[in-house]
């Protein structure tokens, strides 16, 4: 296998989830665009998102994008860049209408508008008592299949528009020349052939990397290829210490039960039958943000109050429970919920429980535990989705990132439920427009004739090495150490242990190879290469977590339990240092100011975060 196949497109989009497809729709209207994806587009993990996508439409309750922005900033424990958040919440509204016009089958209100539901951390000032806040119906939904509908709708529109796809092409390298991105190298999975994609602008939209952890809601494919490959080219990773554990994963499997379960009134109970969220978040209870709920579950388990003394608690969505606690929005109108209502709003969750737990949630509560769910961090970008080269904010010409693989940062230390889908469509759209604009202003710059050489070498080395141990053991050990020592709670000793372990795993990884030496669908080779990405990202995650000596959002240090705004009101940039080292830099948070009484004051002042 010698000469690679050469392609030339003005824009290349890597990844075909929500962000990639949204970008493709907009970029392909302007310039020659191709989508390169290791999965068929409809397999992407956007399809697993369930509960909803937030936008202040005010279809059921009065709301505003400013409310949404405030919630997002508070949800992120304030290390959130405020200009992009305002963009996110303003443009969310028009993006929802765009999606509806594309055909997305949102559920409807009786008067035919898009239906909305409650979700954790989404609030508004209580009418008549604005110093207090109450849950608001902001999450637009299509049953609990919202992500599936978004993915299908965007793919349908790509077909309509004739977008060109390279399905099951796995990106293995970026072509970087003189600090600019000029294309990518990918392997055609069906043949093993290498392809060079020469481009003017490249978007990384490869999704998250939850497979770094043992219990995760993430698909097998979520190995952070984009951020890891960029990192190897000297591009930073931002805020890697902020990794979200979703409170309601199916026990043992980590499969997600949507937050919509709690939005529609579901209650969490410990082993003693107590509604423990009343203690941890007296106002919002189960609708506190995800980091708060996950920590509460951990604390219950630690205190021996898990169910049967085990490491799980119950999520109860039985109508009689919801009616007993009057926890559904229906109770505001004096109505009770019944089985039919639960079935129609949460059918996917019911099905997941019935299939994987053998439990009918209409009759019994479901055992749940926190599951690694979402990377707030990733490849840093500005709000035009241009990738940043350093903490000073210089951009990498030609390189863009969006979606979970990117860090804009709109989620800060903890993302609110539904905001991942908002991020995809808002910044996916911005990426498509920005990269097309840039491509139009540029000529194709030269790339080396052997642009695929490093990739060729990487593959040949992997194939030539003997299999000294099954690489799966390395992955399992990585997932275990990350879960135990760099999970919901962290401390100095655990992080030091994790740092040493990850370094050991990297060296073991480099000395072992794979069994399959073939070229056609060598999935063993690809999983092995994906593991290499996870190891590099894990090293950056641990180093970032060590550097943040405070507790904020999803990052909880047992040895530094308080938030420290004096020393840590900033972003973490992890830079690769040599082959295994990590160097940490910091970048200030983008704060929006307003004029008040003739003075410039922060629009979203820091406050103690309570729910």
């Amino acid at each position, binding site marked *: 296998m010698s000469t690679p196949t050469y392609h030339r497109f003005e824009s290349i989009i890597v990844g075909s989830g929500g962000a990639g497809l949204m970008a493709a729709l907009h970029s392909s209207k302007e310039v020659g665009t191709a989508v390169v994806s290791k999965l068929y587009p409809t*397999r992407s993990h956007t399809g697993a998102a369930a509960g909803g996508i937030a936008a202040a439409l005010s279809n059921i309750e009065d709301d505003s994008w400013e409310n949404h922005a405030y919630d997002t900033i508070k949800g992120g424990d304030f290390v959130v860049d405020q200009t992009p958040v305002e963009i996110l919440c303003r443009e969310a509204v028009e993006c929802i*209408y765009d999606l509806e016009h594309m055909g997305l089958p949102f559920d409807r209100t009786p008067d*035919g508008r898009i239906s909305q539901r409650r979700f954790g951390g989404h609030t508004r000032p209580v009418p008549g008592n604005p110093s207090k806040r109450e849950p608001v119906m902001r999450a637009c939904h299509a049953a609990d299949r919202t992500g*599936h509908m978004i993915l299908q709708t965007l793919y349908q529109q790509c077909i309509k528009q004739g977008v060109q796809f390279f399905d099951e092409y796995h990106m293995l390298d970026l072509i970087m020349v003189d600090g600019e991105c000029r294309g990518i190298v990918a392997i055609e999975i069906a043949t093993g052939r290498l392809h060079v994609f020469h481009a003017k602008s490249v978007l990384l939209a490869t999704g998250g990397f939850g497979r770094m952890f043992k219990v995760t809601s993430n698909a097998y494919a979520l190995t952070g290829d984009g951020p890891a490959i960029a990192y190897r080219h000297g591009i930073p990773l931002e805020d890697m210490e902020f990794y979200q554990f979703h409170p309601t994963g199916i026990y043992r499997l980590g499969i997600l039960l949507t937050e919509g379960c709690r939005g529609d009134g579901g209650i969490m109970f410990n082993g003693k039958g107590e509604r423990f969220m009343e203690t941890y978040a007296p106002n919002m209870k189960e609708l506190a943000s995800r980091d708060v709920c996950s920590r509460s579950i951990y604390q219950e388990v630690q205190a021996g109050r898990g169910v049967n003394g085990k490491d799980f608690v119950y999520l109860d969505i039985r109508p009689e429970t919801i009616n007993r606690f009057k926890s559904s929005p229906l109770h505001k109108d004096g109505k009770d919920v019944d089985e039919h209502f639960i079935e129609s709003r949460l059918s996917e969750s019911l099905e997941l429980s019935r299939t994987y737990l053998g439990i009918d949630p209409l009759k019994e509560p479901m055992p749940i535990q926190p599951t690694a769910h979402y990377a707030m961090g990733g490849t840093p970008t500005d709000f035009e989705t241009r990738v940043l080269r350093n903490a000073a904010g210089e951009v990498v010409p030609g390189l863009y990132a969006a979606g979970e693989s990117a860090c804009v940062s709109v989620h800060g230390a903890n993302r609110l439920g539904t905001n991942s889908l908002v991020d995809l469509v808002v910044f996916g759209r911005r990426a498509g427009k920005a990269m097309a604009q840039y491509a139009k202003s540029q000529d194709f710059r030269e790339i080396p004739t052997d642009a695929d050489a490093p990739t060729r070498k990487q593959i040949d080395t992997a194939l030539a090495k003997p299999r000294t141990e099954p690489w799966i053991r390395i992955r399992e050990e990585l997932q275990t150490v990350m879960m135990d020592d760099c999970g919901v709670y962290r401390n100095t000793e655990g992080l030091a242990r994790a740092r040493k372990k990850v370094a050991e795993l990297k060296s073991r990884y480099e000395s072992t190879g794979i069994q399959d030496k073939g070229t056609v*669908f060598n999935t063993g080779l690809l999983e092995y290469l994906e593991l290499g990405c996870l190891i590099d990202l894990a090293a950056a995650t641990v180093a970032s977590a060590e550097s943040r000596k405070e507790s904020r959002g999803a990052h909880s240090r047992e040895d530094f339990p308080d938030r420290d705004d004096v020393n840590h009101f900033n972003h973490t940039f992890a830079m690769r240092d040599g082959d295994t080292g990590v160097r940490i830099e910091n970048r200030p948070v983008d704060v929006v100011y307003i004029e008040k009484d003739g003075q410039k004051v922060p629009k979203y002042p820091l406050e103690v975060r309570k729910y």
Partner: protein
Amino acid sequence: MSDLADPNTGQIRWRDLTLRIKRYDPEKDREPHWQEFKIQAHPMDRVLDVLMKVKWEQDDSIALRKSCAHGICGSDAMRINGQNNLACKLLVQNVKGKTITVEPILGLPVIKDLIVDMKPFFDHYKAVMPFLVNDDPAPTTERLQTPEQRARFDDTTKCILCACCTTACPPFWGNREYVGPAAIVNAHRFIFDSRDQGAGERLDILNDSEGIWRCRTVFNCTSACPRGIQVTQAISEVKRALITGVVDIPEEAEVLS
């Protein structure tokens, strides 16, 4: 406590199984052949877990597609003990006997082991105009639709394009040119959407000689669908629309006009 222990009793209930896989490597084999692996599995394991365990621990050259592992991405459709299913949706405890036999879905060219060429399947899907057609200028907010109109096509929005239905369909086995149940399901999803204006064109496409009339109402598609879609019913509704010339969609309620 082990991860695989029963959450109530703490006991591990291992099962000894034989995994029988139809192997084919185009770089080595002239014909597909069967290979057996011995493995211990937990009753609550997915068939996908069993396959991955064998791949990781015994032979990493086994080729299969997988991604979400909980029945929503549609990657791992395969024939398991003679029936199409997603490997991630079938639990070991629901498999009869001590042998799990897996082979690629039928009717599409096999590339390697459990991986088939999906291109003919997606070509059929793309042929039915699987996208909303509405050339009216869009309003500044959403187009209105009653809950009843939305419910009319709810079932067919669940499709994940896994191909379980189409590759369980005897007419499709006999003739790969037949558009197949999955494409009809996706046509149905738009034909019965009150916001859509492309029903006539889609019905014309399905009226073709390789179109909907190849359906012999075998119901294999319905029993194969891992999403529980009433595939045969959807096909019948499209047939009825073709015969009667009427697309039966609930009227707009007065509140919307």
